[in-house]
């Protein structure tokens, strides 16, 4: 009971600053704009400079009208030039264009600066630190723990762990993800870290090659993702054994090696990370690959707003009215953020599959693993495979019956 009380208390304490900050950031109601004739005031300008919200209805709703509502402009058509430009900016003008898509009707798009600031600021900063931090943590872990060895040495007897088709699908997925990760990083970071040192021409060439590879190899990644999902989903359903695995930290810390079937809980985490994060990256990637054709975010945000999710964190409802360009900005950010997360997971996966664990790479190299390795890391799977090998073939059993 006390524990629950403390949890509720902690939640209140943690959310209070967020709510207070939100209240501070909220636009003030009822600003007196008589001094500026209804236009923006010094207070609006100061708030904007401090990255605080302003109530811009004085601007967004001031788009003129017809001759009856604005009689003084009647002979001129009911709207001044300034009214027209405001209507264009806020997507309220009645536009007719000869282009074949909605994008062409957005003549003024001022929603891109926040995206650019995040893309070249926090995204690069935190994404970069996530990758470097993951590598640093693994390096420290390796220095402290060393390689996970097979206790008692290898037996010399091997057992087939992955069939050819499984390994091929794995390497299709792995190879394409590494290429996509590298070309994605070049696209994001080239202007900052390559152009100043190697020149814009070199950077431009790298970007063109990166874009070409990224757009086309993406399909190999998606096919590999579907193949791996279909082949391994049944082995990755969580079960009670996973709790035992977690209790012993997978045998990586200490010397107790918990029993496991074909995939242990750690591998299941990697599997579901790849499936869920990789699936999300694929969706946002398709949205980017076919610009403006597959908008994802306005609808998603509407669903999240209906669920009340932003309110849980004391935030305003998410935007549900956005131009096609803003949809693409959200898609790009989401694509990159989730990709950084998956890259961190995969770096850890590569570590444990090569340097971190003796005998692990054999499973994906030629599919054969030593029985001592299998006994140490996947004891139940080893027993099941041995029992299956000893059992008479199905045709023999049918004939005997």
């Amino acid at each position, binding site marked *: 009971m006390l524990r629950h009380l403390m949890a509720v208390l902690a939640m209140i304490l943690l959310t209070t600053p967020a709510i207070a900050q939100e209240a501070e950031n909220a636009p003030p109601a009822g600003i007196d704009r008589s001094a500026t004739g209804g236009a923006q005031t010094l207070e609006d300008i100061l708030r904007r400079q401090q990255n605080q919200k302003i109530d811009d209805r004085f601007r967004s709703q001031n788009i003129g009208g017809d001759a009856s509502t604005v009689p003084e402009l009647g002979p001129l058509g009911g709207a001044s030039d300034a009214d027209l430009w405001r209507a264009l900016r806020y997507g309220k003008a009645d536009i007719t264009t000869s282009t074949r898509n909605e994008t062409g009707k957005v003549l003024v798009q001022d929603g891109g600066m926040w995206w650019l600031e995040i893309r070249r600021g926090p995204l690069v900063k935190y994404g970069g630190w996530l990758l470097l931090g993951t590598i640093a943590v693994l390096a420290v872990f390796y220095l402290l723990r060393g390689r996970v060895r097979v206790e008692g040495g290898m037996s010399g007897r091997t057992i087939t762990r992955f069939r050819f088709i499984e*390994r091929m699908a*794995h*390497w299709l997925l792995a*190879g394409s993800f590494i290429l996509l990760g590298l070309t994605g990083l070049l696209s994001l970071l080239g202007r900052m870290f390559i152009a100043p040192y190697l020149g814009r021409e070199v950077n431009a060439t790298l970007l063109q090659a990166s874009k070409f590879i990224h*757009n086309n*190899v*993406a*399909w*190999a990644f998606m096919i590999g993702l579907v193949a791996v999902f279909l082949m391994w989903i049944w082995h990755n359903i969580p079960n009670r054994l996973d709790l035992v695995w977690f209790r012993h930290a997978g045998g990586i810390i200490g010397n107790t090696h918990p029993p496991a079937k074909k995939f242990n809980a750690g591998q299941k985490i990697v599997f579901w990370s790849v499936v869920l994060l990789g699936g999300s990256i694929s969706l946002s990637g398709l949205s980017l690959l076919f610009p403006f054709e597959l908008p994802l975010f306005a609808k998603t945000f509407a669903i999240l707003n209906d669920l009340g999710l932003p309110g849980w964190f004391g935030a305003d409802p998410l935007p549900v009215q956005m131009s096609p360009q803003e949809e693409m900005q959200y898609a790009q950010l989401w694509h990159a953020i989730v990709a950084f997360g998956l890259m961190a997971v995969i770096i850890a996966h590569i570590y444990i599959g090569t340097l971190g664990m003796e005998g692990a790479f054999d499973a994906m190299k*030629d599919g054969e693993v030593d029985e001592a390795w299998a006994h140490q890391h996947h004891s139940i799977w080893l027993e099941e495979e041995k029992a299956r090998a000893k059992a008479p073939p199905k045709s023999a059993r049918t004939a005997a019956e």
Partner: protein
Amino acid sequence: MNAILAGLVAMIGIGIGAWLILDEAGFSSQEVYSGPNVRLEQPAD
């Protein structure tokens, strides 16, 4: 080791196949969002 090579060859094959199909389908933004009335380049004199 053969599976690694097969996976990488499949990746290259799928990538080239995607390029050929998408190029044939005219998927690029330039082809989708422009027409004869959009003059992207100076006409040859």
